[in-house]
């Protein structure tokens, strides 16, 4: 993941176009925490981009930087044609309604003191009710996420985790957004409930023509929902491409290691990860994965690999890719 370069950005219409995104936080004693470094990607309308990686690899930070929460250190985030990083406070506030988010912890995502009716209506309350944005539509929305509208006056603690996630989804959809950012939306839920929420997201995506950024550490979930997948390691992108290429023909040793860790995987076990994730306060030089990579050589320790094309929609940032490139025309 050590990749740099923007070779993987596609020509043509992208709904979200992120270029050279850098997010740094002040660390202890003047150190700098490199949460996200030189990340570029694009998402077309109607697409779902899955972002995978270990905890702390910067996948959530990347997604939050897209909606400027907080604003990134540098780089540009184009949504349609406006650069969100350059919008002033009010313009950003208005534009951001088009990009909504659901969170990992369904409980802390809902204000315990407000009724779910108030919670779901919040967006409409802020921007005003008009025309088809009336209360009838909110009731419809509550029903469409699988919550019985007769419970609308209850408080979040009276619902289960799965139901709270449904309520979060309804809140996010109340303003008719075009983009839904899902930050580990099912990681905190029971497996039986996970499937229900994933089905719900899939249905709603079709109904509302949503474009999604789907963040998860669960590869099975990501494969299920994503059109394209971006693998991140320690703040950089390792490999990006259509889901089938990434899962069936992983080229980056890190992607292979992730896949090898899935039970029942047919990828050799010697590809699996050992060692600790290095600190983002002091990321390794060269390829950031070199400290844990079984194939690392001298060049990996000195030179950041650039993205190279591996298939029609498959890009890898690695000096020693472990798969055979697909023949390109």
């Amino acid at each position: 993941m050590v990749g740099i370069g923007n070779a993987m950005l596609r020509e043509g219409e992208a709904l979200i176009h992120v270029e050279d995104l850098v997010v740094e936080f002040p660390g202890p004693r003047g150190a700098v925490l490199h949460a996200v470094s030189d990340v570029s990607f694009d998402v077309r309308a109607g697409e779902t981009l899955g972002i995978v990686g270990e905890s702390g690899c910067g996948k959530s930070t990347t997604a939050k930087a897209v909606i400027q929460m907080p604003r990134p250190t540098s780089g540009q985030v184009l949504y349609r044609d406006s650069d969100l990083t350059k919008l002033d406070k009010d313009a950003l506030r208005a534009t951001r309604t088009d990009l909504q988010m659901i969170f990992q912890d369904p409980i802390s995502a809902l204000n315990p003191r407000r009724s779910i009716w108030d919670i779901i209506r919040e967006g409409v309350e802020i921007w005003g009710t008009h025309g088809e944005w009336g209360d009838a539509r909110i009731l419809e929305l509550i029903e469409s996420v699988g919550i019985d509208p007769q419970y609308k006056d209850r408080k979040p603690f009276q619902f289960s985790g799965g139901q709270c996630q449904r309520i979060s989804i309804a809140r996010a959809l109340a303003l008719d957004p075009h983009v839904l950012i899902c930050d580990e939306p099912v990681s905190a839920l029971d497996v039986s409930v996970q499937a229900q929420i994933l089905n719900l997201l899939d249905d709603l995506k079709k109904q509302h023509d949503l474009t999604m950024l789907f963040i998860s550490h669960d590869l099975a979930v990501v494969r299920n929902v994503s059109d394209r997948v971006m693998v991140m390691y320690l703040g950089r992108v390792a490999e990006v491409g259509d889901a089938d290429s990434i899962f069936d023909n992983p080229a980056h040793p890190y992607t292979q290691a992730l896949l090898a860790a899935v039970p029942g995987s047919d990828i050799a076990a010697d590809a699996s990860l050992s060692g600790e994730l290095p600190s983002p306060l002091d990321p390794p030089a060269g390829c950031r994965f070199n400290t844990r990579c079984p194939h690392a050589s001298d060049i990996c320790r000195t030179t950041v690999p650039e993205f190279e094309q591996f298939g029609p929609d498959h890009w890898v940032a690695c000096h020693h890719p472990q798969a055979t490139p697909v023949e390109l025309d």
Partner: protein
Amino acid sequence: MTELWLPSADPTAEDEKPPLALWRRLGFGFWVSVGWVLLVIGLALLAPILPLEDPNATGVGGRLEGPRPGLWFGADSTGRDVFSLTIWGARISLVVGFIAIVVGLLVGGSIGILAGYFRGLFDGVASFAFATLLSFPALILAILITTLLGRTVFWISISLGILAIAPVGRLARAQTLVFAEKEFVMAARILGADDRRILIREILPNVVVPMSALALLGMSIAIVAEGTLAFLGISVADGLSWGKQIFEAGSRATDLQTGPHAALFPIGVVFLTVLSLNFAGDRLREVFDAKELSL
């Protein structure tokens, strides 16, 4: 979506039995406490129209006469009606306690919430001010203010209110820090809520419960503090208060020995009132913390 409507696979705990109503969850003790406080407040408010002896009239009973029907709490060393004194004294003691904690809540609460929400320089200054206030000997500060500005109900309330600012402010700040980090605040911001709306709709409702519990405790502390000032002889110059009454009844050892009731009755009323306020505050915090915050 209907095929996803699977209430049995995704149950709410309370599908079977609805949660106990809030008033039931607060419990018997809470309502007894509230009842006592309301009774005292009611009597204090109605004092002018109740058939009470004039609290300042001497010789209503004999010197240090014990309790008897019609003179329920007995008489003090000048023959004044202790029952009437206690009820009239409640007026000033409760007002002082109430104003003090309102000052603490309004000033300390708003500073604390803003500091916890906006952080940065304002937070630094506010936290430093709280620490300074807390490290200043409380009683000295109260004595200083009342001697400089006057021994009126207003200034005594204000001086005790200033003492309440730091503890209330610290609690408000700490609670705000917790809730400002929660994802529902981020969700509100993404929906377009501005700072004012987030503070009022998202933060305040969550901070107000622990604060009101503290307010009840704080009111009882202020009532006791007024008593302390009275015992030092520097409470309200004119008028009656519980502290002043206890001070007058208890300042001479011989009086205490021959007629302890003149001091014990007001002490008992203060004790029960303070206990009730404490208990009610504790219960309130327990119920809300356990039921809604820990989930």
